[in-house]
């Protein structure tokens, strides 16, 4: 297996995925790096890329007037940055900033969407991998919203 295919197949998201699907996904992939405090993307920009983190930490932030950026989640090695690529209008709703040196695999979202439209088996296989991530984050966000560490905690 070639370098990029191997890296993609070893990522937690793609582990166990058939080699034909890995090859299709790797065809949309490239290696990227971000230095500390460099932004992966900003809110309102098109969600053109999905990032599979190989090393480092990324903070998801929302700018709040008068208070600067508020971090609401950090993601690390093995995590995915960017689930917005799945659904229209394919636009980021938050900023993503590297808090330290980050190495990642960037997947071209349009390339992947096009391949999923052509090959529904690939689309279904990828959805089965992305949806649990979405649900886990939704559940975590619900717990976060409960503010359990308030005065009663």
């Amino acid at each position, binding site marked *: 297996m070639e370098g990029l295919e191997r890296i993609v197949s070893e990522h937690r998201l793609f582990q166990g995925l058939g080699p034909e699907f890995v090859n299709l996904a790797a065809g949309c992939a490239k290696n990227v790096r971000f230095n500390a405090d460099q932004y992966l993307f900003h809110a309102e920009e098109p969600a053109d890329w999905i990032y599979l983190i190989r090393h480092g930490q990324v903070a998801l*932030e929302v700018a709040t007037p008068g208070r600067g950026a508020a*971090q*609401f*989640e*950090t993601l*690390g090695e093995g995590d995915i940055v960017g689930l917005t690529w799945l659904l229209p209008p394919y636009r980021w709703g938050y900023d993503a900033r590297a808090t330290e040196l980050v190495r990642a695999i960037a997947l071209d979202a349009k390339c992947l969407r096009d391949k999923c439209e052509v090959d529904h088996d690939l689309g279904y296989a990828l959805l089965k991998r992305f949806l649990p991530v979405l649900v*886990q984050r939704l559940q975590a966000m619900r*717990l976060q919203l409960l503010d*359990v560490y308030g005065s009663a*905690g």
Partner: protein
Amino acid sequence: MDRLGERAPVMAPDAMLPLIARVARRVRELPDTWTLDLVAADGGPLMRYAPGQFTMMYAFGVGEIPVSVSGDAADQTRLVQTVRAVGKVSEAVTRLAAGDTLGLRGPYGTAWPVAEGYGRDVVVVAGGLGLAPLRPALYQLQAERKRFGKLVLLYGTRRPEDILFRRQLANWRRQLDMEIEVTVDHAGAAWRGHVGVVTRLIPRLGIDVDNAMALVCGPEVMMRFAASALNDIGVPEEAIHLSLERNMKCAVGLCGHCQFAGSFVCKDGAVMRYDKVRRLLGLKEI
């Protein structure tokens, strides 16, 4: 009656009679949270306790509250307890200055089963003020470090400024024999640690799940999710221990205020095994 706790509680000879304790030292941990070092007012021994147990603190003329011990059980010269001011009694207790006195009953309840972790990896999951009842267990784990496998502390709290025992955590981190991960629910851009609920850290644990023990303390909702996440990665239900909290009044299983299905949290808990309570935790009726 099906008791949920397994270990016999250690109870003072006269469980309903308060001892008079004197505040030897008072440390502000957070704007609303204070740690009190207590000694016997008559200069004698105060009480022996095990990690995980609690006392009933009596602010004279105001009332009584249950408070977990947060100090080192190996240091019997003083009793260390950490209190957050959230009501009349806790506000009165946290206003006490060095030299002031208060009433103290106990210790009560079951203990963290630290010795069950000998030869195993140990994960401690704390949420918010839940780090305080776990600190005595952490002291013991550190004191007997060689008896355990991998030792991990996962601590979640609201914001970076709400981190409890900050200096202690830094000291433990410097010792390099315990992995410590701190996460907050919200943070400004300057924060370099994790952001997100503490349960998100659990799937990343590099532990031998078949030979691990977990101690969990925090708000009950957080404990439910944390215990479930630990079980999801393979830690057996019977190896997960939680410290429950209910409305405790008598602390000796007589008044029934802390009834939890067929048990009483005050004497059958507060530390209980997850497999015994899992199906009860989501019931709003109890």
